């Protein structure tokens, strides 16, 4: 027994892809220092994971898990900060935070539970829902094209960019483990079927494939990212698309130390 799961009642639908992510995270956390791990979540079905794990957690606001995580890492660099966020959370409400955390290479790991739907609020389209998705607020289907978050991350400076699928748990465990180990901003999109509103198991089983070559040069990684357009066309590559070593924000901002206020007062005379 790893003592990592609380006796809290689990309210995910049977068969929900979130169980797969929970199992993988459990494996990853048990390989790491549990005491130093902080799980930061947004609001949505995915966020409930904070209540299920017996680890330090910061159950943030909808869309705001990433700035909370950035703040936690700034507050104590020794903490291993893992964010579990939703697609509505990170791609809609909080996309500015996602982009800026990537840009400044904050040393956190972001795991997106991408079910391509606002699940907890009962079936509405997100930024990565297929265009024709019929949701509770788009009864005739949507009119907007989805965005490609992998491409967005690659073009805004993320230093670790990967995609996994809960239907391929071994690969997913390896990807998240590597993401957590990576020193810098790790972005991992996880394809997470929602059995209630958008059951994508069948289509993902058919269309996803594990990339033979990973860690591509940036341009190639971007091309690879565009292979799937988040509508229903194309094959879906899985794996680590890109990785780069570069300075993190935390190692570049000033250290916290004693401040001599008497000296400042003397100087301001």
């Amino acid at each position, binding site marked *: 027994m790893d003592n990592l799961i*609380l006796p*809290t009642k689990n309210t995910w639908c049977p068969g929900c892809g979130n169980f797969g992510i929970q199992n993988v995270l459990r494996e990853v956390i048990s390989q790491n220092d549990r*005491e*130093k791990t*902080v799980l*930061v979540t947004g*609001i949505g079905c995915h966020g*409930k994971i*904070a*209540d299920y794990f*017996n*680890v*330090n*957690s*910061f*159950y*943030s*606001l909808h869309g*705001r898990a990433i*700035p*909370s*995580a*950035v*703040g*936690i*890492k*700034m*507050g*104590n660099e*020794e*903490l291993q900060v893992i964010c579990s966020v939703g697609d509505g959370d990170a791609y809609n409400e909080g996309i*500015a*935070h996602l*982009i*800026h955390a990537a840009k400044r290479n904050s040393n956190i790991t972001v795991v997106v539970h991408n079910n391509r739907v606002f699940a907890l609020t009962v079936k509405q389209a997100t930024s990565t829902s297929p265009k024709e998705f019929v949701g509770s607020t788009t009864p005739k289907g949507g009119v907007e094209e989805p965005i490609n978050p992998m491409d967005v991350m690659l073009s805004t400076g993320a230093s670790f960019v990967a995609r996994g699928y809960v239907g391929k748990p071994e690969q997913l465990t390896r990807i998240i483990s590597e993401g957590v180990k990576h020193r810098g901003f790790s972005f991992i999109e996880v394809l997470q079927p929602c059995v209630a509103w958008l059951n994508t198991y069948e289509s993902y089983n058919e269309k996803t494939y594990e990339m033979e070559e990973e860690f591509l040069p940036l341009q190639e990684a971007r091309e690879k990212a565009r292979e799937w357009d988040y509508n229903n066309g194309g094959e879906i590559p899985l794996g680590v698309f890109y990785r780069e070593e570069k300075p993190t924000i935390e190692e570049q*901002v*000033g*250290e*916290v*130390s*004693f*401040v001599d*206020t008497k000296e*400042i*007062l*003397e*100087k*301001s*005379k």
Partner: protein
Amino acid sequence: MGNNLGDLQIIIGGAAGEGSKKAGLLIGKLFNSYGFRVFIHEDYESVIKGGHNFSQISVSRECKDVIEEKIDFLLALNKEAVLKHKEKLKKEGVLIYDFGAIDEDFSEEGGSVIKIPLKEIVDEAEGIPLMKNTALVSAFSKIIGMEWDRVSEVLKRELPVATEKNLEVAEVAFEKTEKIEEVEEGGGNQPLPLLSGNQAVAMGALEAGLECYYAYPMTPSTGVLQFLAKVEGVRTFQPESEIAVVNAALGSAYAGKRTMIGSSGGGFALMTEGISFSAQSEIPLCVVLSQRMGPATGVPTYQAQADLLFALNAGHGDMMRFVVAPGDADEAYYLANKALNIAWKYQMPAIILLDKELSENTYGVKKDFDLEKEEIVREEKGEDYNRYEGEDVSPLIFPGGEATVKVTGYEHDKKGVATEKAEEIKAMHEKRIRKYEKLKEELREEETVKTYKEGSTAIIFWGSTKGTVLEATKEMDVKLIQPLVVQPFPEEKIKEALRETERVVCVEANATGQMTKVLKEKGVFVDKKILKYDGRPFTVEELRKELEK
């Protein structure tokens, strides 16, 4: 004009980008070194080049944080400065201007006029045009009879960039100008630290153990970030938005760092969901809210005290907070310290309410109080730790050790796991209310309301109007009442102070009488409101007239 300089009002003005603000501060520091008490009011438009900026320096033997309508010296870097302010000169006042940049000869209009060829001076010392402000300050210091040794000492300290060149320019200006007045020592006063309200807030927070300060630029609060960014030992960070600011601050505080954030009305509006999160998650959060003229973008660089009701009510749900409203830099210093300490001691949001005048004006700080950091007693906690255990204030533990620390914005049980159970919801609300009651209890012993003088008329004021109210009522038999803490609102102390009075006047810089509304809600009725909402601070003369009506 007499030979012994006493109280003085000096305006130095020019186009934005000409450095009149820096020059104003230099003049303030010069008088400060002579032992005078100094107060500087800043007025500038929301433009980068051109536009009109001026500083008004109030010099006196005793502290008074006000500017007056009539001035003794006008120092003009451009023509607009002359035209805008020359009517303010007293009969015996002196106009000093840059002859060269201004081709008009104002000496024909009567009054004392001194023309300084700033360009010539700068050229002679081979300086750059930007150094004209240094030259003007130096020339002025000679006119009023300051000694070169002391002037050069201040300039050396205050002009860290291109110091040598600046000093050469200053020396040429000093030599070429004629001495007219005889400045005295300012009544034997020791020089005081000169700080803006923003800087005083930063200092007070530092003395409460501030470790991180996060903000997104917004006038008039930006000065706090600018100041702290230069302080070694504090982690400053400018994220992508005020929403990121507040959430990052909550994260850092959770991780154990004493963190403060700041903004003005618009940015504060964006922070409100996070402020509510602080109340619910019981993560300490200290926010500087510096008011400017709204609504919306309003008049970005001008004065208002119109976010009082917003500060008291910002954040959804039944939430408690601590809000202070300092009236000068000393109070800002003291109350910022208090606010950060209280946020940590009671694990709740605290707001420091400033306004444009207090934030950006410069004050001599007496600091006749002792400050400290409120140490949080941190028990060792093991695996069985519950973040929300206890009756009111829970033991505060940071993640990284044996105890698992779970925080959340959902209503929760004592472990920090979301709950929808009726009895747990009710119990957690009551826990937070008990915490607030405990804070109220502590504040009973504190000076949450200041009173000055006695009289049958009471004048209630708050924030930066303090200096003007004190000066305008100097000769009046009135009782002055200033709430320093505005949430929990100290209605009992205010009612006590009003016991022997017959009439209540409330002075504030907004259009609808926000403090009057708060007072009314608490059963204190105001007979007369004196309001100002043109973006400018009250002047002494204006307020006196209103009070005499």
